């Protein structure tokens, strides 16, 4: 392809985010709700860790705004939550890269939990919080999925020469 490295990288990254967004709003049965991983957050954490020079707070924020629009939630709440985990991941990306896979997964659990807690808190302010603990289970599922997603995204990054 005649695309520059930068343009191609951007396209590939955008593609992974699009897939994550589609997976997020894919209509699963209602009971699976508490087991749906936070796809966008996971993809964001990966890219922030792998290439923090290209993907960071701004990317997270933009993905969050798109998520807000798709969900029809208050504009800015997912944006804030994703900007937060992008910030944390970029801040600690050197440590994260050194961690063994399972330890990374634990950090991912914490990051996604922070994301969801922040969302829950914002929803509480506007009086729309659900009366359930189910809000925290997605972070556990996200943790379990992380090792596999990590391998997939790493292969995509290497094959596509994303940097």
């Amino acid at each position: 392809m005649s695309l520059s490295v930068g343009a191609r990288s951007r396209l590939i990254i955008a593609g992974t985010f699009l897939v994550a967004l589609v997976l997020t709003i894919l209509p699963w049965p209602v009971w699976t709700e508490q087991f749906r991983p936070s796809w966008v957050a996971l993809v964001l954490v990966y890219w922030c860790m792998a290439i923090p020079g290209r993907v960071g707070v701004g990317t997270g924020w933009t993905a969050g705004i798109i998520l807000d629009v798709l969900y029809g939630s208050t504009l800015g709440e997912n944006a804030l939550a994703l900007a937060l985990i992008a910030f944390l991941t970029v801040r600690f990306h050197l440590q994260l890269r050194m961690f063994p896979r399972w330890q990374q997964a634990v950090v991912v659990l914490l990051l996604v939990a922070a994301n969801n807690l922040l969302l829950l808190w914002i929803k509480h302010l506007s009086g729309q919080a659900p009366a359930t603990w189910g809000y925290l289970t997605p972070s556990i599922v996200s943790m379990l999925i992380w090792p596999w997603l990590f391998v997939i995204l790493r292969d995509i990054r290497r094959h596509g020469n994303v940097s």
Partner: protein
Amino acid sequence: MLQIHGWQIRLPSNLTRFVLFALLSVSLMLLDARGHQLERIRAGLTVLFAPIQLVAAIPIRVGGWVVDFVRGDRALQEEAERLRAERPILMAKLERYDALEAENAHLRELLGTSALVAEKAVAAELLEVASEPFRRTLIIAKGAKDDLYVGQPVIDAYGIRGQVSEVGVLQSKVILITDPGHAIPVQVNRNGLRAIAFGTGAPDSVSIRYLTASADIKVGDLLVSSGIGGGFPFGYPVARVAKIVNNPNESFLDISATPVAQLSNNREVMLIWPTKAALTPPPKPAEDKKPAPAKKPVVKPAPEVKKPVESAAPKPATPAPATPEAQPKVTPPAIEPAGTPAAMPTP
């Protein structure tokens, strides 16, 4: 470092960026929650990202085709047979309904209140995408061009499903009665006891709050919309009481009810345009023990204060300004037969 035309610009640090974007998010949220300035931007963005939703809706749509294909002729014939058998029964019911409606209109005329007026109803197709976790929302493929408005009741063949919460260009958002941010005024069909049904986020239950232990409500009671608040028309089924827990430590009963509408049915919903007259609750709820309050056409159920003017019964159609309660009654003057109040016998 970024170099533009020989100028060196330092890129903001990670923390600075986060603070900036966080401030931006917070101001967006405040603008979005408190005002309506962002509606146009949101509508534009929704159109821009609609393809993502369309892609996400593909599996279910394809699944539907496959199911239809596999089911084949026999199942379809059976279904047609069943529908054909059902039709005369429904038609018969409908005939009786017409008669009842006429009678109802006549009675209301005698009372001096306006009759229920027929409503426009339109079916809307759903876009099968997941709602935000633990919210109960739908996206329908109708928008501003179809005269939708925020707060519009959404029903199905069995009862009330929710209301339109956001009108976009091509699609709109519907918030279901089970959404944690939703509440609908209801009354027990049996005795007119009024309550509010709150959504909890659970897919198949609403909770009825603020009823004391002495309230006359039983498991199995049908709750219909009471029409108070002016959003939903009176008399549509909402939910059936499923469980009542009386905990003496709590001041109120803990009641959960199962919505009557098929909330998980992902095919179609009905949008209705209630007319002003239909929004008015019936003149007398059974729960006030006052003798014959129904005689008073203007005064809505609650206020006993206006009762003393017993002899002034024919007058009521006019004195709108003083009583805020009379407001809904006065709004549809066109439908009200002009002569009725005067013709009414004085009690």
